[in-house]
């Protein structure tokens, strides 16, 4: 597994699932149904406020585990983080 932390451009379908993303001049096509899951953050180390009603975004992170391939290369598993606040995407992990 390789840890990465780079912004990527992602194309999504109507239900918000990634279908394609580009990273380091390569374009990756999603080849099977992506799996969305939720991870968490150690807000006690990062946040400056935690008042009632601040919402789960202080704690929660939306993650996507996808299988994708570049051109005719064999597919790899990637993990993306989706930030709901600015609709930005981050590539965080590549599985071997």
């Amino acid at each position: 597994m390789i840890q990465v932390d780079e912004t990527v451009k992602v194309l999504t379908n109507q239900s918000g699932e990634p279908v394609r993303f580009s990273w380091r001049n390569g374009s990756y096509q999603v080849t099977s149904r992506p799996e969305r899951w939720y991870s968490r953050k150690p807000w006690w180390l990062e946040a400056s406020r935690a008042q009632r009603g601040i919402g789960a975004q202080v704690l929660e992170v939306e993650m996507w585990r996808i299988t994708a391939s570049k051109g005719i290369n064999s597919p790899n598993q990637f993990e993306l983080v989706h930030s709901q606040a600015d609709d930005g995407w981050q590539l965080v992990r590549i599985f071997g």
Partner: protein
Amino acid sequence: MAIGSNLWLSMSFTHLNVSSAYSFHFGTAKPDQLAQAAASFSQDALAITDDNGLYGAVKHIGACLDQNIAPIVGVRLKVENRGTVTIFSRGHNKGIGWAALCKIVSKAQTRAQGKTKKEIAISEKDLSELVVLDGKPTCTILLGPESDIGQAVIKANATVAARKLLDWKELIPVSECLSVEIVSHLTEPGSSYSTLQAKRMLQLALTAGLKPVLTNAVRYLEPDDALTGDVLDAARHLEPLGIFTPQANAQAWLKPEALMKKLALEITQSQELATKLLKNTEELANALRLDPVSDCDWSRPKTPEKSALGIEGNPFEVLWQKAHSGINWRYPNYSEDKLLPVRHRLHQELITINKLGFATYFLTVADVAQMIRDMRIRTAARGSGAGSLTNYLLGISGVDPIEHDLLFERFLSTERSSLPDIDIDVESARRHDIYRAIFKRYGGNRVTLLSMQSTYRGRGAVRDGGLALGFEEDQIDEIAKSIWRFSARNFRGMLSKKPELEKLAQLVEHDRRLNLLVDITERLDRLPRHISMHPCGVILGNQDLLSLTPVEPSGLGLPMSQFDKDDMDPMGMLKLDILGVRMQSSMAYAIREIERVSGKTIDLDAISRDDKETFRQIRTTNTLGVFQIESPGQRELTGKHQPTEFNDLTIQISLFRPGPMKGNMIAPYLDGRHGFVKPDLIHPDLAPILKSTQGVVIFHEQVLKILNVMTGCSLAKADELRRTLEKDQKFVEKFFRQNATKRGYSKAVVDRIWSVLEGFGSFGFCKAHGAAFALPTYQSAWLKTHYPTEFLAGLFTHDPGMYPKRLLLSEARRLGVKILPLDVNKSKDEYLVEKTADGLAIRMAITDLHGISNSEITRIIKQAPFADLADFYLRACPSRATIKRLALVGALDELAGGSTDHTRGDILERVRQLTALKSKPKLDENQPMLDFEAKEQMPSGFAAISTAGQIQAELDLLGMDITDHQLAKYQPMLDQMGVVRSSELVGLRSKTEVLIAGVRVATQSPPMRSGKRVVFITLDDGSGCSDATFFDEAQSRSSGVLFNTKLLLISGKTRRTGVKGVSIMAENAWDLSQLWQDYRQKNQLVAVENRK
């Protein structure tokens, strides 16, 4: 079928796995919030499934009834070797499901009892036996992500999981009793609560032919509450966040139906399977819906059976006879004429009791009261029960309701059907004996203790919040101490308002963690933290009690219900409040000491209630140690009020409460009483009702009578109106105006009275309660007046008051009651009265010595008397620290032949010799043996201890300054400053500028009419107590010392508050010990200067 199809859209969803805030340190939502949310999603049923108990179940059922949805109740419980599962009572089966669930919980809890330290869990055998009764399913078990199969699908392979499921099917062969719970919190694929786990569980269930159901394993209402969940997790783990594995994300919330359907699709990846999953869930939910009435015997009053009470025949006839036979006892030598109103009233009360079917209830309480008296334990009733003649005649209460004009209708009426509360005060030291006797008398199947939910308040919330964020304990202590009488819910708002938080407010601005702490403290506020034994409640039921409430072991060893006092009424359970009152123990002790020392027997309940000397003593305001009227505020009120009879005490106790104070009722009453103004009795019809309280409406009973006279409604109806007044004023106003006008009262009178009633709301007090309290007030004042030594000995032994013991010492000095020092030959574990040449004195008890162990105390008392120090050391076997402390406070002086023969220094040296010996038990044979018996061994010539040193030792080791008042050492400085002694204050003019000094003995911050905070500080300077009042400005000037500094100097102006009352309007305050240091430094400088 497509996603948009009608069937799919019309399918409902019921949340079956919901942990409420009563899953301590786990859930964050109260049952009413959850039920409300479910109802707002148009769900028509909701479950509660708390950890290890039914702590929130009754509240849940009540909340569901309010929302008109069906309640479902289960428990999340460990099954031995099989992980955690959820077990539900099935419904509509005449309670066999509910009973089985209660027993499962009780069994699991009881298993954890004692020293075995076993975790709370149910054995497979017990579970399999209880979920089926005569072939019928009583309960259904849900195997979810935390069960052994849930773990196996993740950690092991499919075969292992399938085999474990097969084991379950063999253990629980009835198919309705077992289901598989499918949950996805959308966690990392492959982990617990992931969609992958859900998929595998689903497959497993289908293959095994078990019905899978969908839940969301809910632990909070909304995603936002997940942060609160993190903090609760830290409190549960007792570790800061970041140390333990936290919850995976924020998905465990009460999701609406649409989201749950989406989840079903995501897990099943098939419309057909998703539909089936939802259908199963609804089918199971339907089978679990409880009918509160037929399943839980909801709200139907339950009392012990006749046989358990030892009565035969019709309970009402028995009650009739018992009450009538009490007439001769309570009203001896009354003529038939005078008894007529007694009989009339009794008949009316009995008719009501019979109509309500409560005869057995009264017989039960009477039986308990009789049992307590037979144990020779002092009792007194409290609360509205004192308004019942029946209670008086049965010996449940000790106040005559006819003499004191108390109303039965305030206590009980046909307008209400819930069991009334009868509260009994007993000697605190004997309370547990009474509990055990009740268990013995009625049997363990009919009795349980009541539990109590503790909730997070300011300090607890800061502490656990601080723990979660990893603060140092000292730092949290500091912050916790500054939280004083405000709700943690508004912590942030208070930062800018309270002067004592100013420092913290500045820190918060720059410290991120402190800033977070403020937020999470607010989040924790009011959440339930844990369950504990209620300080006074016992539940008495019939032999089915343990089928209606789950129980768990209490600290006392007796079983305790998981329900709290608010659950009693809905469950129709009879709760007896047997409250341990230290004052009752103190008085019982005083009476025993009087009898022991002088041979006199006193029946405190039979003494005359108009003793002039007692009231004269009360009027001096030296009421320290007297029940209910010893607080600074009550002393001030006593000075103004100057009570002369028993009824005055009832009024004073009722007046000194937040309501009347806020409602400004005290001043008009006092003005009328002292003849400054003519009381306004409003209308001749009301004069008899209002005369005794100078036209001020103080009591509930007066409201009842006013409504009765002016509207013509019955007293019972009037009490209902009084209760409604708190909720629906409009309704009562309409009723009152219509009927009073109809009866010919002018608009002016109706308006006046309505404005009184309108304002009355929360102000009033039940006179019966006031009168019941006035009795021990009078009795303790009587004892203090006539037997001060014995009474103080009782106070020292049982410590009933609000003040530290050292203030009692000051009071003893003031009264001229001699206190004898600790003496290992004479002191016991109680403060005994001793006859001396100068009369009676009190011998200090050994128990107050700092650090002494119970076994040391027992040995000293058992082995005494001792011949000398060595003898004491050998036979009492005190620890080194204890013998040294005993020497320091003078408890060994007599063993050295009295203080004239040897100094404290000699004694300490001898102790040193002895304790050194002990560490070398085998002495060299060549060395001469130390003769243990000989007094000649006493060293001599060592320095005596200074008075100041002695007082310091006493304060450190006993918490009391026995030799002299601790302020004595500051006297030179105080004299130089012109500090006034508290006993001199009464001779000063109003508005004199003064300085007072002393030891803080009380700090109070009662609610005020204006809503502003006022702080009262009481100081003791050895000559008595003085009270200082701090308003806003004075509070901010003295914010550094306002709450925590022990020795204070206060500047201010005197304010006369009555004939005998003076208090100080404070301007500023300082730390006396700090001033002392400065003073000494300066004096040393001066001394050095002078020498030059």
